[in-house]
């Protein structure tokens, strides 16, 4: 099986450790993972702000970069959701039937990490070791746009040493929302502060989620409040071992 990593623009530029963790994890599970250098961004920042024309080049480079792979794996529920639900819109807008055909081909082969592990590889025990208390935030797009359900939890429950603590109001949005965080900064911060308070209430050492952009926001609020809670992407915990801890 030819598997490509779609690292996402945010992870590429800001959180390379998450991409490295996915590579380590997939190799450990026997997957030969490739990183197509032509990839850029899924286009979601443009689409969600209303700049549909501006998203066309990103979608074009997406389908070009991942053409011919059996599966495209990404450590982001939001970007997987964008590929699956928004690329068609952008392609229609471009008026290019070739792009629409390529999107129809690529979209269904694009998987968020936990979907790929559970549905395609059929594993829940990935052989990870992480001896800490962890609370899990199900990000909105993973939860509602993709419907990843309890897959991330099932993966976390099989991590040796890990103690999973329930997050109050877990399913409520953290307030990131892409450009919402800037356009409606006050509301975004109010939502983030409530989320951060719930995270602190759990007493967990680590907050985990499947999207670094949400974590950057919640972590940013926690950091300003000097909460001392560590923020980690799901991939980093799943990649963690006794020899190479996260």
């Amino acid at each position, binding site marked *: 099986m030819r598997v490509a990593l779609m690292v996402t623009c945010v*992870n590429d530029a800001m959180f390379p450790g998450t991409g490295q963790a996915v590579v380590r994890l997939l190799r450990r599970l026997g997957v030969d993972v490739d990183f197509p250098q032509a990839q850029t961004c899924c286009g979601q920042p443009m689409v969600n702000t209303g700049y549909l024309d501006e998203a066309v080049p990103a979608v074009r480079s997406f389908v070009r970069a991942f053409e011919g792979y059996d599966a495209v794996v990404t450590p982001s529920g939001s970007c997987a959701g964008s590929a699956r639900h928004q690329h068609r819109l952008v392609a229609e807008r471009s008026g290019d039937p070739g792009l629409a055909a390529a999107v129809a081909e690529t979209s269904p082969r694009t998987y968020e990490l936990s979907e790929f592990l559970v549905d395609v590889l059929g594993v829940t025990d990935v052989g990870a070791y992480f001896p800490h208390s962890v609370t899990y935030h199900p990000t909105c797009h993973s939860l509602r746009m993709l419907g990843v359900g309890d897959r991330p939890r099932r993966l976390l429950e099989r991590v040796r040493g890990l103690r999973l603590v329930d997050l109050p109001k877990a399913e409520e949005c953290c307030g990131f929302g892409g450009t919402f965080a800037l356009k409606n900064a006050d509301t975004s911060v109010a939502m983030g502060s409530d989320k951060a308070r719930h995270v602190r209430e759990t007493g967990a050492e680590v907050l985990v989620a499947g999207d670094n952009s949400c974590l950057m926001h919640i972590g940013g609020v926690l950091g300003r409040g000097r909460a001392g809670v560590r923020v980690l992407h799901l991939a980093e915990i799943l990649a963690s071992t006794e020899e190479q801890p996260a």
Partner: protein
Amino acid sequence: MTGTFVGMPAFPSAARAALADTQLRHNLAHATGVIRGKRAAVVGEVDNWEELRLAGAAVKERALLALDTQLVRLEESLTAHGAVVHWARDAEEANRIVVGLARAHEVDEVVKVKSMLTQEIGLNEALEAAGIAAWETDLAELIVQLGGDLPSHILVPAIHRNRAEIREIFARRMGEVGRPAPADLTDEPAVLAGAAREHLREKFLRARMAVSGANFAVADTGTLVVVESEGNGRMCLTLPEVLVSIVGIEKVVPTWAELDPLLRLLPRSSTGERMNPYTSTWSGITPGDGPQEVHVVLLDNGRTRALADEVGRQALRCIRCSACLNVCPVYERTGGHAYGSVYPGPIGAILNPLLRGTGDPQTDALPYASSLCGACFEACPVRIDIPEVLVHLRSQVVDGHREDRVPKPEAVAFRGAGWAFGDARRLDRAERLSSLAGRLLRRRGRTSLGRLPGPGSAWTDARDLPAPPTESFRDWWRRTDGGERP
């Protein structure tokens, strides 16, 4: 908060003021939390909720796609039952019709059963200008009216008020407009409701004309339907001599049988009840019983504009249950006034631009008043994909500015991003700059950025932002061959 919605500031600044009101935030979080819990419990009781949602959506969709013929059928049925049907293109026409009817009957006051549509068109103000007093008879509407206030929720218009404030409003204002509140008024809910009942009873018994809205209008039987909790609606619909119902053209349902899923979806989604206490239906005139003159004003006011929008059209399926408000994390923190409309929350964020069209700063801000978390779509009983419509309307806002002589900084930024994302080599160069900044910062021992100037300050005023890494993932992959080389 007094006065009118017109001229409200755009959402971000209106929200900022609301967020600073800690009492308001507490009231909202508590109230929406309670309704959310009740709704979840009664929705959970229904085995085939998803099928019911699909059925409800299908009924409304069928009506909308054949709206012209359904409306003509409705007019025929109503007329056959002795009602007089009026057509109104906009607020001005509708108000003129109602004021004309009130003048013809020489009334100086009317009682009203909660109708959002009359608030949408400013009917009370139009009547007042003609010297006619309009009395709201729904408890929450009465609180809002006496307080010189605006509604902030579809179902609970006075959600932003607490008991002490309501007591104060009743004590101060009831006497000025009718029967005063009792001298020993407390802020006990039962005592407040009792005072409202006494105050309103006088109005019901005196009024010769009533104005109502309708939740549904059945085309084949010519039946209007009002669903309510307090019984005030039934008083308005039965006691006065003249009844005027103002109905948005999207309220039409083809057949009586098709009300079934809608009447099951609405109370559970709205009040979290299995069934609402009062469902009133009326078809024209019954000689010797109830109002002997019935008028129905069918109003467009932007609805055909919304209907013509293929993506936005689904918003007209809305049955005004307010489930989307109660689950919306943005609404929960800002309240309804920030939306600058009688339709607040997620549905308001799409309905207002669809009805009025994009193009003014207040309306254009509404599609952005959402984090696109999708909770509204999940809760909507008629499956309106609100996030989809929000993104669609955002693109209309952006497209409306494509010909601007001086583009907005945001547009310039997105054009730049679009260009960079079109080619990995361009993105790579941008990332080189970012990792250079990261190296410089980390050399000075900084792991997060300080407060940024310009637009970046919107992030860093209240949140840390991590310093960029010293090497992008792309560079790491190239340098180590994906981790194969150290």
